[in-house]
């Protein structure tokens, strides 16, 4: 090749290695690479080493601000002598556990809201005029139509005829049930375990064979050796179902990055092959193939993707194909342009004379030489696809896999926006997923820019 850039220190280096050398001096590009590596590492490791899983709900804690702590337990904690304990990950591996339990009797109040005012308050058959949550003490929470406990309600006085506590009761909701808990006596339960099995359960003087503790009743857990209680810390807070946002952000990153990666590979494969074939054959075939690309290029694909996702049920495979199918067009154009100029070169002629097939020449000689621009464009495609998927998730079309909706960053951000409500109190639900996503996109875009500057010495830095 006539125009290999010469470097005085390393005359035998390949253009590829020279480009990577230049990248090392490209500040923004390196920053981007470090960011991307950190995010990938976090997304791979955090869900593995965390004590929590992304879909583990703890309805009784509800939405909590970052750094909130509570006893490390599951919704139901079941201990039976001779079997493995059923509780959250960490306590199950201790040899000795002491639970402080305060039993709570939930009471259900039916509150009817009509035209923005409390219409009636009832417990059983009895009707009340006012309900003073401050005096009753304990925790009160809204129960969603599905029977799941929703947000906790700030202690306040609810009166008939007055507006309901702000933001807590859905407008137009007819029935709203609340559980109110009464503080009662505190019980202490000790559990002994060896080799992951329960050996003995004591409550005071009593010895039990089996006990089941509800998560919302547990006040504290200690392991008997130290006074520090076993707690879970929610670094990024929790959502309205008490799910840990820290784990959910990194798990959502898996979904986003997986979609970005797979759809990019789809677009890469189609684009490479299509562009190389068009460029290599040339002539009328090339004009026809590129004409088709031009026509497809002009289609507003995002609209079709939205219709596709609505019609065919948010299938993840469909999403890969849809997003990949949009992006291969540019890749095909880039590769074709490269191949057009490359095929005039002597090494292609030499390969043909030595009897290589057309396919062999395309795969072994032409495509490897287009790698520079292809790598650059691939790096810049990943953020575009991540954004595309999140765009869909934001308008309510998040992907599902076997009926479980996979909450990507876009879906988390969408929930965060809903949680902002009127006053923006629960802004962490928006802030953390947004930060994760923006940092990743910033990293990928900077890295792509850096690579482009480095593979194309004619362009100036930051161009």
């Amino acid at each position, binding site marked *: 090749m006539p125009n290999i850039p010469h470097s005085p220190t390393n005359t035998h280096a390949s253009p590829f290695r020279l480009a990577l050398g230049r990248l090392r001096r490209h500040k*923004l590009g390196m920053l981007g690479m470090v960011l991307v590596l950190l995010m990938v590492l976090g997304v791979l490791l955090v869900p593995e080493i965390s004590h929590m899983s992304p879909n583990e709900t703890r309805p009784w804690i509800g939405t909590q601000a970052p750094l909130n702590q509570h006893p490390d337990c599951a919704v139901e904690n079941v201990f039976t002598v001779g079997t493995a304990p059923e509780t959250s990950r960490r306590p199950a591996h201790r040899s000795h556990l002491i639970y402080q339990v305060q039993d709570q009797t939930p009471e259900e109040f039916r509150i009817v809201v009509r035209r923005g005012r409390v219409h009636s308050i009832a417990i059983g058959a009895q009707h009340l005029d006012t309900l003073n949550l401050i005096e009753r003490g304990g925790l009160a929470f809204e129960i969603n139509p599905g029977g799941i406990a929703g947000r906790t309600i700030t202690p306040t006085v609810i009166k008939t005829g007055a507006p309901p506590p702000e933001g807590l009761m859905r407008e137009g909701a007819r029935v709203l049930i609340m559980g109110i808990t009464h503080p009662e006596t505190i019980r202490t339960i000790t559990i002994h375990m060896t080799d992951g099995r329960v050996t003995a359960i004591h409550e005071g003087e009593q010895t039990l064979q089996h006990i089941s503790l509800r998560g919302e009743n547990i006040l504290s857990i200690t392991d008997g050796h130290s006074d520090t209680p076993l707690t879970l810390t929610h670094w990024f807070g929790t959502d309205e179902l008490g799910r840990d946002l820290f784990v959910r952000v990194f798990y959502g990153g898996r979904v986003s990055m997986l979609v970005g990666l797979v759809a990019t590979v789809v677009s890469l494969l189609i684009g490479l092959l299509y562009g190389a074939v068009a460029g290599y054959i040339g002539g009328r075939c090339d004009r026809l193939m*590129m*004409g088709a690309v*031009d*026509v*497809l*290029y*002009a*289609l*507003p694909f*995002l*609209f*079709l993707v*939205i*219709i*596709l996702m*609505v*019609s*065919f*049920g948010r299938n993840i495979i469909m999403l890969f194909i849809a997003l990949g199918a949009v992006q291969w067009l*540019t890749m095909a*154009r*880039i590769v*074709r*342009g490269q191949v057009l100029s490359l095929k005039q070169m002597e090494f292609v002629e030499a390969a043909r004379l030595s009897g290589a097939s057309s396919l062999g020449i395309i795969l072994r000689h032409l495509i490897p030489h287009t790698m520079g621009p292809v790598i650059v*464009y691939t790096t810049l495609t990943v*953020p575009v696809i991540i*954004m595309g998927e*999140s*765009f869909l998730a*934001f*308008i*309510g079309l998040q992907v599902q896999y076997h009926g479980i909706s996979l909450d990507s960053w*876009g879906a988390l*951000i*969408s929930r*965060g*926006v809903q949680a*902002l409500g*009127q*006053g*923006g109190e629960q*802004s962490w639900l*928006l802030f953390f997923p*947004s930060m994760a*996503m*923006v940092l990743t*996109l*910033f990293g*990928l*875009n*900077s890295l792509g*820019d850096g690579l482009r500057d480095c593979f194309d010495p004619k362009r*100036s*830095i*930051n*161009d």
Partner: protein
Amino acid sequence: MMPRIFRRLLYAPIVLLLLVTMTFFLVRLAPGGPFSNERDLPEEVESALNARFGLDQPLHIQYMRMVGGLLRGDLGPSMKHRDRTVKDIISDHLPPSLLLGTTAILLALWVGITIGIISALRANTLIDYLGMGATVIGISLPAFVFGPLLQLIFSMKLGWLPVAGYGNASQLILPAVTLSLPFAARFARLMRAGMLEILSEDFIRTAHAKGLSEFTIVTRHALRGAILPVISFLGPAIAAITTGSLIVEKIFNIPGLGREFVESALNRDYTLVMGTTLVYGTFIVLCNMLADLSYAALDPRVRDAEEVA
């Protein structure tokens, strides 16, 4: 240049026919229909409704009817909004979208060109690095992050601007800023690159030698050539802003066409999906055509080379 124009003109109807066909079959091949989700609908009523909108006909007849209607400029009645035609709905919801899009693109041009020029004049200084770093952030900040962020800061915490809605000028500020951000960033980068190239030309040195002020040189001499890349990106930018407005209209609760499209797709309102997609499609096809033509008109080098990445 002429054959290129002709080819573009030939593509436009092909693209639109393809779009209409794909939309038609994608919407219809899925199980269910516009009336199958309404639970309380008796079976007779559903089949009567299907018959009224011609949904009981074989697919190819429906397709031919739809294409025939479109050729006559008849988009048909909406299937979900009772007693309203698709044309009425579109003419109601198009103005807010157009206003938002125009404001956003003007804002993006103004901010982008300003930042681009300043960065180019102070190339490789702290100002330049800050400016260019900001553009990468601008490109990496999706509207569905930036919009709610602006709402949180300027409406909820500071209380300066309304959270959402449509009707007066103050309600247009946040959505327009949100929508314009990625385009302002791209314009800034293109402007900076174009400016750097022009500033290294001989005639700029001559202008300096004549003793002209930097302001005059930039505005009178350099800007004219440096702005070309920005202008050629204008077409794709206007096309891309339509997709951006889908989200922004949702976030800021603006009664625009984008929201109508998303809702009609979710509601399986066949005729409204077709109408809104066709409006957007025609608009985008026009913008792409303009963009291609302006590439050719502005830069003779691009006219023959075909890879416009």
